[in-house]
């Protein structure tokens, strides 16, 4: 494939621009007066920028509650995932035990299991437990991640057995070995898993939309989608100039935290994605 330097950079720049343009458009437009979003979608006039859309959005949805709920779910569920995945990965990488093959096959099957399939039975289970619209429902069912286990296993397999045996000879227990040898060594891989996990949980939509039906426990993403639906069904009036601005403001607010995390930690994320394919 003859691309040449000009062609190569032209292509990459085009791809980069296409990737970022909708994001930039969203952010810039959220500061524009509603009418301008419609009449001149591609214009940019710094003198025109306003916070009106953000103010009216605050009147329409309890975005503070959304942020609080999302934070609770992200922190607890993320922490559980980050503890459980390396633990299971360690067992699969460094021990021989009866049932190992069967259990690992279970992990691999979970990877291919469509989330949607669990929707109905899981919802019924939640209602049997009395957990509908609770934080337990949002947190516990997703507190494991098959990809995370699979990947942690790959990372931990690279640790030499001698290192672990040396610690055993010195009298360290297995839990001690895990906590003070394995975890420090795999810290880079764990960081990448952390970024991926944060992004997945923060952006999660399907399960929260099914499991929660009160505003008290709604996550940010569900709130945003509910706002959009109210707008579409005409509940907030049919004045597009004002509602589009609100919608873009809410979208920007929902996107900013995850984009900041991404910009700061993107190296780890890209490494995490790459790890998914490197050693299959």
């Amino acid at each position, binding site marked *: *494939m003859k691309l040449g330097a000009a*062609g*190569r950079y032209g*292509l*990459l720049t085009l*791809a*980069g621009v*296409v*990737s970022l343009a*909708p*994001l930039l*458009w969203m952010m810039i437009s959220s500061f524009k007066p509603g009418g301008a*979003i419609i009449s001149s*979608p591609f214009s940019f006039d710094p003198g025109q920028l306003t916070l009106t859309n953000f103010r009216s959005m605050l009147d329409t949805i309890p975005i503070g509650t959304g942020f609080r709920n999302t934070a609770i779910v992200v922190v607890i569920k993320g922490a559980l995932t980050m503890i459980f995945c390396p633990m*299971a990965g*360690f*067992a699969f990488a460094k021990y021989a035990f009866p049932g190992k093959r069967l259990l690992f096959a*279970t*992990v691999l099957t*979970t990877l*291919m*299991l*469509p989330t*949607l*399939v*669990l*929707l*109905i*039975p*899981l919802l*019924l*289970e939640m209602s049997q437990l009395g957990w509908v619209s609770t934080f337990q429902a949002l947190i516990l*069912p997703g507190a*494991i991640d098959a990809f995370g286990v699979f990947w942690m296993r790959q990372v931990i397999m690279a640790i030499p057995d001698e290192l672990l045996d040396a610690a*055993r000879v010195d*009298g360290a*227990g*297995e839990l001690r070995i895990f906590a003070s040898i394995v975890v420090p060594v795999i810290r880079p891989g764990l960081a990448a898993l952390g970024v991926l996990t944060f*992004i997945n949980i923060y*952006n999660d*939509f*399907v399960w929260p939309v099914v499991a929660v039906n009160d505003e008290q426990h709604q996550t940010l*993403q*569900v709130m*945003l989608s509910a706002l*959009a639906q109210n707008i579409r069904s005409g509940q907030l009036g049919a004045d597009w100039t004002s509602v589009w601005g609100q*919608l*873009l403001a*809410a979208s920007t607010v*929902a*996107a900013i935290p995850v*984009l900041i995390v991404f*910009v700061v930690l*993107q190296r780890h*994320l*890209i490494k995490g*994605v790459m790890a*998914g*394919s490197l050693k*299959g």
Partner: protein
Amino acid sequence: MATLTEAATTRRSARRVRRPRVRAAPYLFVAPFILVFAAFSAYPIFFALQLSFTNWHGAGALEIIGFANYRYLLTSPDFWQSMATSGVLWLLVVPAQVLLALTIAVALRKARFRGLFSAALIAPFVTPLVAMAQVWIILFDQDFGAVNHGLSSIGLPTIGWLTTSAGAKVTVALLVLWRTTGYAVILLMAGLSTIPADVYEAARIDGAGAWQQFWSITVPLVTRTLSFVVVIGTLTVFQLFAEPYVVTGGGPFNATRTAGLYLYKHITNSDLGLGAANSMLLVVMVLALSLASIRLLRSREDS
């Protein structure tokens, strides 16, 4: 003598200390995963299987009705329409994605500022889907949207992106492509980075042109990664829910009612037995598709 006994004792005690712990340890380490899996994946799956043979609507005792749900679904035009919609979206997304991602990954391989380009490409994957779905609704609005605004300003006819059957499918497909192609590029980059440079060197000395190098070295050597990309793309498309749910609500006239949205309809209608049967059909479908894509690409690799 003393040292010998000592050594033997140490060895024995080491064994005694080690053995029982090591035996219990792996189970303790996998226990959290297994417990969560059993409670929130395995149990629900078996429950769904059981439900799929009932006409349960969410209350009362379970009444077994045999294969009636499956028979109903497999003869229902709605079910097949949802499958066909997912199939059309697959055709719109996966081939384009493989082509685009491979081209971009090859260009990226020798480029400078690789980190910067990769970050830009994967940014859409990171942004909350629900937020971007709103942006799509606004950009692709027929009367006021920026896309039609742009089309008409260069003298092209406007398109009913969200109001026509074909337009809505394309709009949803574009969102999926935009969000996931960067992810595929990064996966392919990882695959490409495992090809040693001297393979290309040797081909060049043998007089292979750039196209020839691409087809006879790059493509065969990344088939494993390519198959991974296809499988992930297939799983994504056949589980598509949030994109059509937020952007089109499945409309217009069910044109974007994917397999996932059709499944969701059973929940909102309280047809839980039927929904469970639909779930089971979807599992079979997704597993079959994944295995088929792996098989297909593997046989190409062998030949």
